[in-house]
């Protein structure tokens, strides 16, 4: 029972990490808090449904759909950055927030126009349809897949940021835009790339979320606030912080829903407020960024 709850918290945490890591990456590098992140995440889920629907007989239908959804969402992110976000880099925080908030309203209505108001359901392939038994506890096998992808993305992002040339440029851009740009590296292209990467992960998260339950309009509204909380708790721009905070929030939710179901969601906001009051830069962030 407790183990099952732990695993459910783990998979919930991983899902949050997939959403929040892109959010944190974009904020850390570009200083833009992307309200539209969860709306794009939901588009990823709907795209996954559409690809899956178009390939009813393909053996790898769902897996291919997840990949295609993430890829096409990255393209959408690339366009959004090039057309809109780029224009507000040197603007006030409030204007940047408003722009991405306006995007939420537009994207949610576009989803309604394109996919309609009915819930969408994806039938899982047999591999991940049934439960598996670990220590005698029945577990949803799809959760195992979610957890694996979460760890995979975490390791992949870490490797990208720490070990590759592009990762080094991105981390340098976090510290000083001017310096990186003085070295002849085109900052706008780096920003577009980072935004597209963040949205790619959001698309991956959305597509993976799609077969968990039904895909519903407005799912993104609760998710974006939780993702903000995770990023705040972990510290803006800190990958490790986001990872730890996702797991903490996932587990706190999974266990508090057993003990005190009414308070489970409120608890996240209490934790977030506490962290902001005591350590505004988050558990793993650095004070310099405030």
């Amino acid at each position: 029972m407790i183990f099952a709850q732990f695993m459910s918290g783990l998979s919930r945490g991983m899902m949050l990490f997939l959403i929040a890591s892109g959010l944190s990456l974009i904020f850390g590098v570009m200083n833009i808090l992307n309200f539209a992140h969860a709306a794009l995440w939901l588009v990823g889920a709907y795209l996954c449904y559409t690809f899956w629907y178009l390939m009813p007989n393909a053996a790898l239908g769902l897996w291919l759909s997840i990949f295609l959804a993430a890829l096409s969402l990255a393209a959408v992110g690339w366009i959004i950055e090039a057309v809109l976000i780029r224009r507000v880099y040197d603007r006030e925080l409030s204007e940047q927030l408003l722009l991405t908030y306006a995007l939420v309203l537009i994207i949610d209505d576009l989803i309604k126009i394109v996919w309609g108001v009915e819930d969408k359901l994806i039938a899982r392939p047999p591999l991940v349809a049934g439960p598996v038994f670990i220590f005698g506890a029945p577990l949803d096998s799809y959760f195992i897949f979610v957890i694996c992808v979460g760890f995979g993305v975490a390791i992949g992002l870490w490797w990208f940021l720490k070990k590759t040339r592009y990762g080094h440029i991105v981390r340098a851009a976090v510290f000083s835009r001017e310096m990186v740009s003085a070295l002849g590296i085109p900052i706008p292209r780096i920003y577009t790339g980072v935004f597209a990467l963040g949205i790619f992960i959001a698309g991956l998260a959305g597509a993976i979320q799609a077969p968990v339950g039904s895909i519903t309009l407005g799912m993104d509204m609760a998710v974006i606030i939780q993702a903000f909380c995770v990023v705040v708790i972990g510290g803006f721009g800190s990958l490790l912080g986001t990872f730890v905070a996702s797991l903490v929030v996932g587990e706190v939710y999974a266990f508090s829903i057993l003990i005190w179901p009414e308070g489970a969601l409120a608890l996240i906001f209490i934790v977030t407020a506490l962290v902001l009051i005591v350590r505004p830069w988050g558990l793993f962030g650095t004070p310099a960024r405030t």
Partner: protein
Amino acid sequence: MKRSFWLVLVFIVALALPSVIGEFWVHVAIEILILGLFAVSFNMLFGYMGQLSFGHAAYFGVGAYATGLLLLKTPLPLPVCFFISMAAAGLAALVFGYFCVRLTGIYFAILTMAFGQLIYYIIFQWYAFTGGDNGLQGIVPPGWLLNVRHYYYFTLFIVIGALVVMWLISASPFGHTMRAIRDNAERTRFIGINVRRYMLINFVIAGMFAGLAGGLLGPFNRSIAPDLCNWQQSGIPVFMTVIGGPLAFFGPMVGAVIYTLLFALITGFTEYWPLTIGLVIILVVLYLPGGVLGLVQKKWIPLHSKKLTPGPNGGAGEEI
């Protein structure tokens, strides 16, 4: 001189309005007044203190629930309910604001949002007291306000009274101290001002007037739902203020007129209101920084009569 002319003109139009328009538009006008008051109270934080609150709807909601519950469960007269609404919202703002004013910028925005969501979930889950997600139904104003035109005049005078008070606050030494904090908090501290205390007082004032606006809403709608406390609702005064112009005292009011009229017109023939307002906001942010009143200032107020300085929010001109 010129502004007082406009204010008198707007006042006369507001007085004459209910006798020339139909009942539907009287409803719209009341909504403009209530949401305008809400937006002006928000701008006490945003325009005058320079901090973006993304949880202001919580205080609006606390005020709405206070008046709603008092009307349903006690025989108190409506004006007393409004005072209690303001006190309740002010108290909530005091408790949460105490922590919020320690932060600025993005952290202020997120902490106000987190507290706002906390209040929202409390109201949403507390079935025994607030009715949970059913909200409160059957909030009936006293007999003399049942007629919608009467309620319009009642709201008009309360909102004007509240605007006068907020105008006096913003024009007082306190108001100028807030502008100083907005423009440079560090220098303001150096001249011996307790920045946090001033910000907290301002936060409480903004919360109280949001509570008053919320109080006006219940007897007008005859019902209250918890949705009016959540973060999407907190976005509405932000939209109004940015459309109207955050650097002018009446900017949020102008924004409330534009937003609410647009809402009434657009929802008449399409359900895609969010899409429409989203596009409007993007256009305003990209091409009209400073809002409508910012544009008016730039275009129509001659340069030699007033020195224009770039505002902190990317807008042009000082307060009008």
